[in-house]
């Protein structure tokens, strides 16, 4: 039977996500690259005790609303942007492995507030180390040495080793149960291309979990994606689900 990784709904795409799962959530911190509909589906499913892995723990509905109004004249923010803070605000997250959990300035993100209430644990990771730990998981490499963090809190409890006169930390690969990622176009094999800066952690996380689920703008016929330009080969992708053509703001009562 012909391979076809396209599933028909976001709820079906996340149906096997379980309590306590480790979710690698793609994106960087902006709306364009965020797997918003997958995050909303995980929120609807109501699974709990999640570990979220990614750059940011999200900004929070209130902050996103403020940004949308304040930025309207310079940067149109889509109405269907749901970031990992949706899961934090609903109490579904137990732990974050993040590079950018705290908002710049004195504003607090939902993750910071939950941390201060003692509801979530945090492993604060340098962004490059986070990316490489995820890449290593995909590549079957259990650990690697990086110079970043030697002599700081990041080095606590880690092996330090000298190579060619410089000190390095041993960092472990970070594998997820599910990678939730956003891409631009896919085919039925799960080959993916991205658009602009939305590639970021999305392409890094593809294949770094037991199951990789890609939220895409469009599915095209096999053969339409130029093989020279495919960024993520379909071997890394298990499911593909298409975003709605018109933005579908979610008004489900929280």
């Amino acid at each position: 039977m012909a391979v076809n990784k396209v599933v028909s709904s976001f709820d079906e795409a996340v149906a096997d996500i379980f309590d306590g799962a480790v979710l690698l959530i793609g994106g960087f911190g902006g709306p364009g690259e965020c797997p918003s509909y997958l995050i909303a589906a995980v929120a609807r499913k109501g699974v709990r005790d999640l570990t979220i892995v990614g750059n940011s723990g999200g900004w929070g509905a209130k902050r996103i609303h403020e940004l949308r109004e304040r930025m309207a004249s310079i940067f149109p923010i889509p109405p269907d942007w749901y970031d990992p803070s949706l899961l934090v605000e609903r109490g579904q997250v137990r732990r974050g492995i993040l590079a950018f959990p705290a908002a710049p300035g004195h504003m607090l993100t939902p993750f910071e507030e939950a941390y201060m209430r003692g509801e979530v644990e945090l492993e604060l990771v340098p962004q490059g180390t986070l990316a490489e730990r995820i890449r290593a998981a995909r590549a079957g490499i259990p650990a690697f040495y990086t110079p970043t963090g030697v002599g700081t809190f990041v080095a606590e409890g880690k092996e330090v080793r000298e190579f060619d006169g410089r000190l390095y930390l041993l960092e472990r690969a970070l594998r997820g149960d599910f990678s939730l990622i956003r891409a631009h176009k896919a085919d039925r094999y799960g080959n993916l291309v991205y658009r602009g800066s939305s590639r970021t952690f999305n392409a890094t996380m593809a294949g770094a979990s037991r199951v990789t689920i890609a939220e895409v703008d469009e599915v095209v016929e096999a053969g339409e994606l130029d093989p020279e330009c495919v960024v993520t080969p379909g071997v890394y992708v298990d499911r593909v689900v298409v975003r709605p053509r018109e933005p579908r703001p979610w008004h489900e009562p929280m």
Partner: protein
Amino acid sequence: MAGDRLDEQAMALRAVKEFRDGMVVNLGVGIPTLCSLYVPPDLDVIFHSENGIIGFGPVVTDPAEADVDLVNASIQPVKPRPGMAIVDHAESFAIIRGGRIDITVLGAIQVSERGDLANHQLPGKAVGSLGGGMDLAFNAKRVIVLMTHTTKDGQPKIVRELTQPLTAPRCVQLIITDIAVVEVTPRGLLLRELVPGWTPEEVQALTAAPLQVPEDLKVMELL
């Protein structure tokens, strides 16, 4: 009576003077992102951003040109530029860790006289954000800090020993502030430039580590 302090735009303008043709430059969050607006048209600088865009143009100022899928590390829309390349996050940090960044311009909470950098956790906050700053501070060929000389309540940010959490030890080489340019050397801090209207004594009074004043101390020129 001390002179005026530079505004953020003028600080960015001064930082841009460190850039040379062909350099790969990464701009941190905050004031440093303004640098992309002040690169002269004949200076061919390749901007790198943590989220994987390389060789992008200035920050967009006209909303009609904003693309949600072309943003810098501060999530500001930027203009595309001929010669631009896009990579994923792991590759973006391979570029950083591999030593390909000629200059990174970072904001800071404190810098010590040895060039230790604190820039990831604001005083009074329970949680910090490392972002890409730690990788940049450890691995860029040259780390320039661009910051106000003092905190909002007037406390010096250049100190003998950090009192805020360490982001990276002995990494900062040049500090550009709203009143001076200070070089970090193995022999201590050298006062290189003064903003017009300021004296060495006035800058020293706002600096919590000793500044050496060389004979070739200059008045800062922005253009």
